[in-house]
């Protein structure tokens, strides 16, 4: 699946997007996998309360399943307007 990062999450990880091969069943499991990769991922995902997630461009929860999802995005709370 494609994993996208925005704002300071993108800056901390150092990438706007990447292709990730995963068996993770939920967003939370995917986050655990990413955290375990490298320090920059651990830093970006240190506090999930400061993060939001979208699955296929719809806001979602960290407990949501990844079945059939093609695009996951992680970002801080939005500041539009």
């Amino acid at each position, binding site marked *: 699946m494609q994993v*996208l990062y*925005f704002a300071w999450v993108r800056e901390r990880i150092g990438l706007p997007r990447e292709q990730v091969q995963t068996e993770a069943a939920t967003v939370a499991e995917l986050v655990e996998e990413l955290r375990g990769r490298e320090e920059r991922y651990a830093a970006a995902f240190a506090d999930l309360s400061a993060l939001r997630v*979208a699955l296929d461009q*719809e*806001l979602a929860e960290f407990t949501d399943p990844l079945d059939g999802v093609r695009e996951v995005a992680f970002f801080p709370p*939005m*500041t*539009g*307007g």
Partner: protein
Amino acid sequence: MTVRVHSDAFDPGAEVNAFTAAADGAGAVVSFSGLVRDVAGGLQAMEIEHYPGMTEKALAEIRDAAVRRWRLTGALIVHRHGVLAPGEVIMMVATAARHRRDAFEAAEFLMDYLKSRAPFWKKERTDAGAAWVAARDDDEDALSRW
């Protein structure tokens, strides 16, 4: 019922005039424009990042929710991304309705949802460096009244 997202500057006055001219049967038009504000002094630029694809979908959903809830004859959302200077117009909403209450309430609803449900992120560049603008709890709280 238009949603537009782009980096180009736009003229909110011209937008309101065109919107009003097209608002058939409306007795009221309400518009709001948001500007880049230099809160602490020393702001050089505001960078607005967004999530292409999701942004347009989220704004269309917010607009559709307003159209379901109020009797609107028109709704417009325009939002910029990219690098903006202090004083520049970031975004605007406009609503048209037969009666002013529908137009006012729908415009406020659009703004409240746009603040915390549309995937935009602001970064301020100042003399002292650059920092992401933190989301405000009261922006999230504002949704509870709807």
